[in-house]
């Protein structure tokens, strides 16, 4: 199945270097294919590729579209929304425990 979600990147966190690495690691921990785009109409890029993510230069505060295809698509999108977004995600637990 294919699911889509949109999320606004938090105002102080664009997808540069280290945050982008975290996204690719998260994506690759699921079996489904996840794509990301700045426009609902595409072009879609592979969210598991650090090179593509960096080249897309997703700046803080951008609205991004996520599209996942595969059995665990729903869980993958929930985890990504909680990693990327500003506000509380609906469904899905935050992926990283808030330690110190």
């Amino acid at each position, binding site marked *: 199945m294919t699911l889509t979600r949109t999320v606004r990147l938090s105002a*102080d966190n664009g997808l540069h*270097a*280290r945050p982008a*690495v975290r996204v*690719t690691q998260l994506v690759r921990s699921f079996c489904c294919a996840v794509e990301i785009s700045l426009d609902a109409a595409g072009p879609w890029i592979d969210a598991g*590729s650090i090179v593509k993510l960096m080249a897309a230069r997703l700046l*803080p505060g951008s609205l991004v579209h996520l599209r996942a295809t595969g059995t665990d698509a729903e869980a993958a999108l929930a985890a990504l929304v909680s990693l990327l977004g500003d506000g509380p995600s609906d469904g899905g637990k935050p992926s990283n425990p808030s330690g*110190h």
Partner: protein
Amino acid sequence: MEESQAIPVATEMPVATERKGQAAAPGLALAPLEELLPTLSKGSPAQETKADPDAERSRLEQAIRAAIGGLNALVAQADSEAGEILAFQVAMLEDPNLAEPAWQAIATGSPAGSAWTLATAPLIADFEGSGDALFAARASDLCDLRDRVLTELNGTPAGPLKQQPGATVLLADDLSPSQFLSWTWHPGSAIALRRGSAASHLALLARSRGIPMVVGLGPLDAAGHQLALVDGDSGRVVLSPDPVEQARMAHAPKDPASLSAGDPYVMGPARTGDGVAINLQLNINGVEELAGLNPGCCDGIGLVRSEFLFSQGLPREDQQFQAYRRILEWANGQSVTIRTLDAGGDKPIPGLSLPEEANPFLGCRGLRFSLAHPALFELQLRALARAACEGDLRILLPMVTLPAELDAASALLDKAVADLRSEGLPARRPPLGVMVEVPAVAIKPELFSRAAFFSIGSNDLTQYVMAAARDNTSVSSLHDCAHPAVTALIEQVVKAGASLGIPVSLCGDMAGDSNHLAALLSAGLRRLSVAPTWLGATKRHLAQLSCGRS
């Protein structure tokens, strides 16, 4: 190497050359100067005969694998901060999309080196040209990984760095994270860059290792100079500093991390020779400067420059809260004075568009800037009011000019506390103090009777009283904090504080300068705040002074 290194004539000492750059990692260092000449990163030399695609492809594959291996070896030795930075490079190299254009170029006859340079060039150019400071700063990571692979291809030994046996001030156009990590940083070393950025991964590394660094020096000819001073707090770099400056440096322990171990005065009392106790606090740019220091060495933190939180873009409320809380934890019940964001045309913040001003020192900086950006300011006040539940936190407002500005900040703080409580978050209203650096405040301190405390910022006060910009070397002789006009104002503020019942401290560079300690004591000051580097030297000099006489 295009310049023939003439042997410097030993008879004549080169004249001191001073530059003002941007402070990127705090601390002071005085060490032999080593210039790092630009690496050749133009790809393989021009033996552009038709290359064998199969052979070139496997050469490049091997070089990429070797570069990944080299990075992983560095990751294994790195702390978590450095590890994450290197992991980004590893992830880039492991992504087949990176080399994709190179395979195509090789298939059409390109040698491996030019194919690799070609593949990485558009990404690098794209980042360099992106308007975003953080993405632009990543371009140097990409150049770094490009050069790693080229080095593997060309078979030259890793890094052109000539390791020196002792402390070194490394001067370069720019430095890559892996060059930084491959260098053995002897205590007392520092970095001075003609270009570079305070938002770079390199700056993060330098800060976490305690290596002072100044960036953005612009053109600087090092020929003939053998010694350099780097002040990573003020952004000042001096080549061939004069003997007076060198002597002053000699009193400063060179490695802040080894302060507690090295200098017996650090843990000793802050007391004058005639037994008057001085409240001596620390100025810091971030919690990592406190690593290895025992909180018992000081009376708390007199100045936290909260700009450190903004070096990577605008921090979230929670990030700020956690950072403040860590400092309070270290202070272990002692007071911690946090200065709100001191941004302005002379202190740019990545991610904030600052006004283009002809004269930024007289423009929208400090509290003026914060009041003009209430959303940003409220976020910081919320984080501070939350952290205030965890210890003795105080808020210091920079560049206050009018009592109405203090009142406006005070109202915003009240609102932040009320909002937090209505959201069910624990909050406490910290005392609100005024930084005395604008002459209007120093001349009429009694107008600020509602301030909880005064903290004199001697650097800015001096530049405003003397009308000599502190970043303008042509008027540096006028920038004299010991001028009677400046010390008279300091004395006046101390007296006003005493009659108003408002405590007064001084947190500028003047407090850490042994030449001025006596003047500060005779002005009546008993509360000082200095950089951790100066703590031991300040206590030593205090012990030689007495308050009884002038």
